[in-house]
C-alpha cells in the first residue's frame, strides 16, 4: 500500500471508508508509483486483463445458447453462428480471443525472461503467473473440446490418454476423467463445467498476481531497484493508464482483423466436421499455442517419459528464480544471457513448428534437438551463466540512462575499462 495516509474528502466517503477501505484501495491503485521507463513490453499485463474479461463476457453469452450434449453441441454452435443475433461475432471473438490471450501471455512471459522480472523479490508474482498459465492451458484445451468437432473429440482423446502413462493407476484415472470407457457425453459435460469454472479461478489468481506485484512494485527495463515514489516513478494514473490504453487499442486492431477478416485461420478445418468416434483424422494437431509442448511430448520415444518431459517443460519455469543464479536482472546488462535468450526464443518457435509437422524423419530429429536444448538452457546454461558471465555496469537510477548520464564516477570509470 502507499506510504502516505489517505483520507476521503467527503464525510460520507470517510464514513464508508472507515468501514470498508475501498476508497483507500482505489487511491492506492491510481497513485501506485510506476517506473517511468517502462517500455511497451510492459503493456501486456493490462492487455491480458482485457483478454480475460473479454473471454468471460463472451463466454457467458455463448453459454446461454450452447448445449453441452454430445448429440447437440455441434448443432448448437451452428445455431449460435446462424440464428442467434450477432452470435457469429460473439463466438468468433471468443474463439480468436483464446489465441489473442496466448499471444499476449507469451509476450508477457518472454518479457519477464528478458528483463529478469522473476528474480528476487518477485518470485511469488512469477509463480502465480505460471499457475495462471497452466490454468489457461487447461481452460483453452477444454474450450476447444466443446464444439464437439473432430479435433475436439480426438484432441480430448489424445490428451486424456496421456494420463494412462501413469504407472498402476493410469488406466483408472483415464476412465475416471472420461466418466466412462471412451470420450463421450459425460466427458463433454464435465469439460463444460470446468471450462466455466477455470476463468474465475484465473480471475482470483490475477488479483493475487497484481497484489503481489504491488508489494515490491514493477521491475523495469534497467532492472534496478528504485525508490518509490521518486523522480524515477510516475503515478499509475494517468501516465500508465493512457499508455496501456494506447497499446491495448493497437492490440485490438490486430484482434479485430482476425475476428472480422480471418476468423477461422487459427483453427483447424477438421473441427467443422462433427465428432465421429469411428473416423480418426489424418493428423491430430492441438491449437497453435500448445504446439511447442506437443513437440516435446512426441520427441520422447517413451510415453511416460514424454508426459514427464512435457510437464517438466512448464513446471521448470516455476523454479526459474532459483535456476538463474545471476544477480543482474535485465538482459540489457548481460551480453551473454541476451544471446542465449534469443536462442531460446528461436528454439521455442522451432518446437512450435515441429509440433505442427508429422513426428517422423528430419522433423522428429530437429524436435529432439530443440527439446534437449530447451532443458539445457534452463538446467545448465542459466545456472552456469550467473557465475561466468561478465556483466556490464548497471546505472544507479533510471534517470541516468534516460537523461544520458548523471555524474557517477564508479560506473563511468567501469565503462572506460570496458572500452579499453
Amino acid at each position, binding site marked *: 500500500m502507499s506510504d502516505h495516509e489517505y483520507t476521503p474528502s467527503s464525510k460520507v466517503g470517510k464514513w464508508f471508508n472507515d468501514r470498508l477501505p475501498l476508497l483507500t484501495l482505489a487511491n492506492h491503485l491510481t497513485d501506485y508509483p510506476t517506473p*517511468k*521507463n517502462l*517500455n*511497451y*513490453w510492459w503493456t501486456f499485463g493490462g492487455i491480458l486483463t482485457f483478454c480475460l474479461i473479454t473471454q468471460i463476457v463472451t463466454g457467458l453469452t455463448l453459454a446461454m445458447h450452447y448445449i453441452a450434449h454430445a448429440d447437440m453441441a455441434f*448443432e448448437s454452435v*451452428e*445455431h449460435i*453462428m*446462424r440464428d442467434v443475433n450477432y452470435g*457469429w*461475432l460473439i463466438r*468468433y471473438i471468443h474463439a480468436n480471443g483464446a*489465441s489473442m490471450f496466448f*499471444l499476449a501471455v*507469451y*509476450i508477457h512471459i518472454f518479457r519477464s525472461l528478458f528483463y529478469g522480472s522473476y528474480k528476487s523479490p518477485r518470485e511469488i508474482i512469477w509463480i502465480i503467473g505460471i499457475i495462471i498459465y497452466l490454468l489457461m492451458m487447461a481452460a483453452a484445451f477444454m474450450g476447444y473440446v466443446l464444439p464437439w468437432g473432430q479435433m475436439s473429440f480426438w484432441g480430448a482423446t489424445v490428451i486424456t490418454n496421456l494420463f494412462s502413462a501413469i504407472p498402476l493407476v493410469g488406466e483408472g484415472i483415464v476412465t475416471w476423467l472420461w466418466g466412462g470407457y471412451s470420450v463421450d457425453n459425460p466427458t463433454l459435460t464435465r469439460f463444460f463445467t470446468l471450462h466455466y469454472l477455470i476463468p474465475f479461478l484465473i480471475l482470483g489468481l490475477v488479483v493475487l498476481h497484481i497484489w503481489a506485484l504491488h508489494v515490491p512494485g514493477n521491475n523495469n527495463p534497467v532492472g534496478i531497484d528504485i525508490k518509490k515514489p521518486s523522480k524515477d516513478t*510516475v503515478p499509475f494514473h*494517468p*501516465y500508465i493508464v*493512457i*499508455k496501456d*490504453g*494506447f497499446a491495448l*487499442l*493497437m492490440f*485490438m*486492431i*490486430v484482434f*479485430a*482483423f482476425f*475476428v*472480422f*477478416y*480471418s*476468423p*477461422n*485461420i*487459427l*483453427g*483447424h*478445418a*477438421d473441427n*467443422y*466436421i462433427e465428432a465421429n468416434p469411428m473416423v480418426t483424422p*489424418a*493428423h491430430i*494437431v492441438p491449437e*497453435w499455442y500448445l*504446439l511447442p509442448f506437443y513437440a516435446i511430448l512426441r520427441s520422447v520415444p517413451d510415453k511416460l517419459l514424454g508426459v514427464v518431459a512435457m510437464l517438466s517443460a512448464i513446471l521448470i519455469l516455476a523454479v526459474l528464480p532459483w535456476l538463474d543464479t545471476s544477480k543482474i536482472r535485465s538482459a540489457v546488462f548481460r551480453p551473454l544471457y541476451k544471446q542465449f535468450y534469443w536462442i531460446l526464443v528461436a528454439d521455442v*518457435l522451432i518446437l*512450435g*513448428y515441429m509440433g*505442427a509437422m508429422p513426428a517422423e524423419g528430419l522433423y522428429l530429429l530437429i524436435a529432439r534437438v530443440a527439446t534437449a536444448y530447451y532443458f539445457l538452457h534452463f538446467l545448465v546454461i542459466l545456472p552456469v551463466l550467473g557465475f561466468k558471465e561478465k556483466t556490464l555496469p548497471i546505472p544507479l537510477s533510471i*534517470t541516468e540512462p*534516460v*537523461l544520458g548520464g548523471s555524474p557517477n564516477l564508479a560506473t563511468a570509470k567501469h565503462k572506460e575499462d570496458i572500452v579499453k
Partner: protein
Amino acid sequence: MKNLIKLLSVLAFISLAVTTSSNSAETTKLLKTDWSFKGLFGKFDRGALQRGYQVYTEVCASCHSMKYVSYRNLGEKGGPEFSEAEVKAIAASFELTDGPNADGEMFTRPAKPSDKFVMPYENVKAAQAANGGAYPPDMSVLVKARGGGVDYIYSLLQGYEDAPSGITLDEGVYYNKYMYGNKIKMAAPLSDDLIEYGDGTNATVEQMSKDVTTFLMWAAEPHLESRHQMGFKAIIYLIILTVLVYFSMKKIWSRVESEV
C-alpha cells in the same frame, strides 16, 4: 516510437508465423479464381448465389444434405436474396414428414420457409447404403471443414481425370487429382450443360463449380457480408481512437522527462 516499431514488427512476425504454421502442406496446387467475397469489402455475387443454389438443389442435393440451413435463409439479406414469394415456392416444392398429429399419426406436408432444408436420406446409414458405403458429407459448413476451403472445393469439382497408369481403381471409386489420396467415391458430378441456368448463363463445368462453391461459402458463413461491413467500421473506429489516444498520451507524458 522506436520501441513501438519493434513491438509491431514482432507482433506481425508472430501472427505470420502462426498463420503459416497452421496451414498444413497442400499436395497439389489448387485452382484459383477471383472470389467476390474475399477482401475487406468482399460481398457475394447475388447472381452466382442464385445460380449456385440451382446447382446445389438440382445436382448436389440428391445425395448431400444441408441440415443447418433453413429455406427462409435464402431470402435473407446477404444471401441469394430470393423474394419472399420465391422462398415460399421453393420451400413448398419439398415434402417432409411431420407429426404426430392429434390422432398420433405421422403425416407429410409441404415445407415452410421456417423449415430446415429437407434431407435426401433419412439418416447416415441410409445415405451410406445408397452410396456404396461412403457418406456424402453434409454441406452446411463443408467449405470451412476442408483445408484450402473454397479453392479446394472449386478445384475438386474440376479435378476429375482418368487414373494415371499404375493406379487401379475399385468399382465405384474415381480418380481426382485434388482429393486427399486421389481416390474419391463421388463420380464427377458436373458436366457441361448439365443444367439450364434460369438467367441464361452458359453452364460450363467451370461456371457451375464457381457458382456452387460461392453458394456453399454463403451456406457456411451466412453473415459474411455483415461481418466484413462491421469489421471495416470497427477497424476504422479503432484506428481513429488509437490516433487520438496517442496524441493524448504524448501530451500527458510531456510533463515528465521520459519518452513514450
